[in-house]
């Protein structure tokens, strides 16, 4: 296998090393914030796979995040499975949901696709409310103490320890980054981009674009669900709000700000936005207004995001 885009790989390695070192430099409060940023950027990276690389704008990715969150969280809450198994179940759950929704939603295009994904996600959100006796609804469920740690190869990993959480999040982030690097910089990634740039032409060249889109959709949903499963198990809480519209919009916004179609854009976008929202929610309860303003402003004047703009101006390999 030949290595494509060595510069980007080097940048990814440096990013991971910097993130690892940060935990020795940052105060505990910021390390915790960085843990959240890492998990949410996995979510945004999954979203970016579909929106940035394949050009399909979904408004319902909270559904996949929540599929992972609930599959993992409920299985450990009700059946008491160990956390690694629950995590795996979360990934499988997200895979199944994204495959089924993808098969349906990909029959539509553009605006219809956006509405269909939005409606499926709303139905999912409403179901978490409808079955409150199981999911805990708006109040959510807090995972019991024996689901807050696990043993693996003789080590006990404690989910209430900030250090363990950070390093686990970084590990999953690194694995996902590696997988996405392999996909996006390889032949499959080129097909995704081909569909984004010109679907009829890709079809004319003999490719089954429905299958390509379904692959992108499923990979995207599964990665988003991986983030959900990790989030639920790590912070020991699962609730309806993760399935809500706002969660989908946040993934969209993180990707838009960082740069759609760039590998590291979602990380940057998530970091910028979560820090911004954290600051603002201390000042006003109406901080959501910032999300509204940014959606409009970015769409009007800054559609390529931070890294997308840098790529187009200076560094062509940043993709």
């Amino acid at each position, binding site marked *: 296998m030949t290595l494509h885009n060595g510069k980007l790989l080097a940048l990814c390695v440096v990013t991971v090393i910097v993130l690892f070192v940060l935990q020795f430099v940052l105060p505990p409060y910021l390390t915790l914030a960085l843990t959240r940023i890492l998990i949410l950027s996995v979510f945004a990276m999954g979203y970016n796979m579909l929106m940035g690389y394949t050009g399909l704008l979904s408004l319902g990715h909270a559904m996949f995040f929540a599929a992972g969150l609930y599959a993992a969280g409920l299985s450990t809450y009700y059946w008491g499975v160990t956390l690694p198994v629950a995590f795996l179940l979360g990934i499988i759950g997200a895979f199944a949901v994204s495959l089924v929704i993808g098969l349906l939603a990909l029959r539509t295009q553009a605006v219809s696709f956006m509405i269909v994904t939005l409606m499926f996600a709303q139905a999912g959100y409403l179901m978490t409310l409808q079955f409150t006796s199981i999911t805990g609804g708006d109040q959510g469920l807090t995972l019991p103490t024996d689901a807050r740690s696990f043993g693996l190869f003789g080590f006990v990993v404690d989910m209430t320890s900030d250090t363990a959480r950070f390093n686990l999040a970084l590990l999953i982030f690194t694995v996902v980054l590696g997988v996405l690097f392999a996909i996006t910089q390889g032949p499959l990634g080129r097909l995704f981009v081909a569909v984004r740039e010109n679907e009829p032409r890709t079809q004319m060249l003999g490719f089954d674009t429905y299958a390509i889109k379904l692959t992108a959709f499923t990979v995207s949903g599964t990665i988003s669900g991986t983030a959900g499963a990790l989030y639920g198990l790590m912070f020991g809480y699962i609730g309806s709000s993760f399935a809500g519209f706002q969660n989908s*919009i946040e993934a969209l916004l993180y990707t838009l700000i960082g740069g759609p179609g760039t590998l590291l854009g979602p990380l940057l976008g998530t970091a910028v936005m979560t820090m911004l929202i954290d600051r603002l929610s201390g000042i006003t309860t109406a901080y959501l207004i910032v999300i509204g303003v940014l959606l409009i402003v970015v769409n009007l004047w800054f559609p390529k995001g931070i890294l997308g703009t840098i790529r187009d101006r200076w560094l062509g390999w940043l993709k």
Partner: protein
Amino acid sequence: MMDLAPYLLLAGLEGLVMASVLMLTALGLSLVFGVMRVVNVAHGEFYMLGAVGAWACAQFVPGHPALAFCVALVVAPLLVGMLAYLADWAILKRINYDPEGTIVSTIGMLYIIQQLTLMSFGPDARAVDAPFYYTIRTPWFGYSSYKLFTVVMALVLVAGLWVMLKRSKWGLVMRATQFDRETAQNFGIPVNRVYSIVFAIGAMLAAIGGVLVVPNQQAHYLMGGDPLLLSFVVVIVGGLGSIPGTIAAAILIGMSDGLLSVFFSPTAAKIFSTLLVAFVLVFKPEGLFGRSNRV
């Protein structure tokens, strides 16, 4: 089965009231989609602004509630229409009505309008007095005559809109723009101005719906979500951009949502609606009533 009759009558009446308000908001959404080929996700917020406007009029206009109601029925839609016109000029024109960009931008507008209302109007639900109180007696229960007045108002407005679209010069211009934008432009129709006006009219229809509904249901900054969802259902089930289809679907959905909410939980009714939209778009994109549409 004798006991069921009053429930059915009540659910039917409530469904009728709901259908009539829904007809107005859905026609607004449908008109915007039909002529401009864009989806306005902030549509429900224009409805909410209409309701909040009616509350504000009730606060500032002294005297009988009917007076405040009449003022609200004129002032609130006008202000909302101006806001929509402004939003169209400031945002939608600049992205050249790109369909996906419009959805993202109107989601932004949704958050801005909602949060500004939260900051000014506050988080509480507020009631507005009905313009008149007269209870119509049935053998089982009394029914508010204002609710039936809502139905009449909605029918009059929809008839007015229909005549405007089919008979007036402006209606012709709108239909021409809907049919073929480029040809319309070649014939000297100011397509850009038509777009702004259609966007404003769509918002005004939603705002009128909000004014009409607020004596029955309190004004709240989050009240735009449900009408947005149901308008979507109506517009998509009725066929995107088809006005007769929209009217038929509004009656069907309004009635059935009332019935579903009475017999099941409101959440179950909403799950049904969202899945209906999704499946109609996936399997029958021209709508259940519509002929296949030019896009």
